[in-house]
């Protein structure tokens, strides 16, 4: 079993809709959870970073972590065509190694 599971999609939504992305993880030691955004033929860029359980909001983006169910979520409100990208979730703990999901391709249709 991979440490982080993520449905690769693709997910298509109309502009202005809410995008909901999810990952599950198996390693109970994970304390840090990230979401990266990766545009085609570019390196991933850090979008959201949360520690332990809870919510974190940054503009149109909200990240949620539920450690009891080992579930990570990212919500994008008022989605824009520029949000079209692949979104990667990741988890990590004290050894600095991040385990990544496969990535979820999102297409926002104008």
């Amino acid at each position, binding site marked *: 079993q991979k440490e982080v599971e993520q449905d690769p999609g693709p997910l298509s939504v109309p502009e202005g809709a809410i995008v909901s992305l999810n990952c599950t993880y198996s390693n109970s030691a994970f304390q840090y959870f990230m979401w990266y955004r990766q545009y085609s*033929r570019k*390196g*991933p*860029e850090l979008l959201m*970073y949360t520690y332990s359980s809870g919510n974190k909001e940054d503009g149109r983006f909200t990240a949620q972590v539920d450690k009891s169910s080992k579930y990570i979520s990212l919500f994008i409100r008022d989605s824009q065509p520029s949000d079209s990208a692949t979104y*990667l979730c990741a988890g990590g703990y004290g050894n*600095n190694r991040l385990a*990544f999901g*496969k*990535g979820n391709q999102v297409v926002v249709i104008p």
Partner: protein
Amino acid sequence: GAGVSQSPSNKVTEKGKDVELRCDPISGHTALYWYRQRLGQGLEFLIYFQGNSAPDKSGLPSDRFSAERTGESVSTLTIQRTQQEDSAVYLCASSLRRQDYEQYFGPGTRLTVT
């Protein structure tokens, strides 16, 4: 400021040849990571450098893969006797210090082995 840079951006090589990939981390970042991203797959950890400590090589897939880093600067990833399954995007990331999970990625080197 300047981000993580990698070179070359693309590399096509014949099976059996050696290749060397280069990463320039963000200035002042002590930690450096190499990942591999195969088509349709997530990022796969390869190796981690932190300052002058011994690197964590536990993700290297075979002894054909090796990496070096001089101090807290440039790193090179070398793949010897390349195989077609080595075709992937090789990504480098750096972070400010040990146990800093905010890793900043370079654009990657797209390696194609023919």
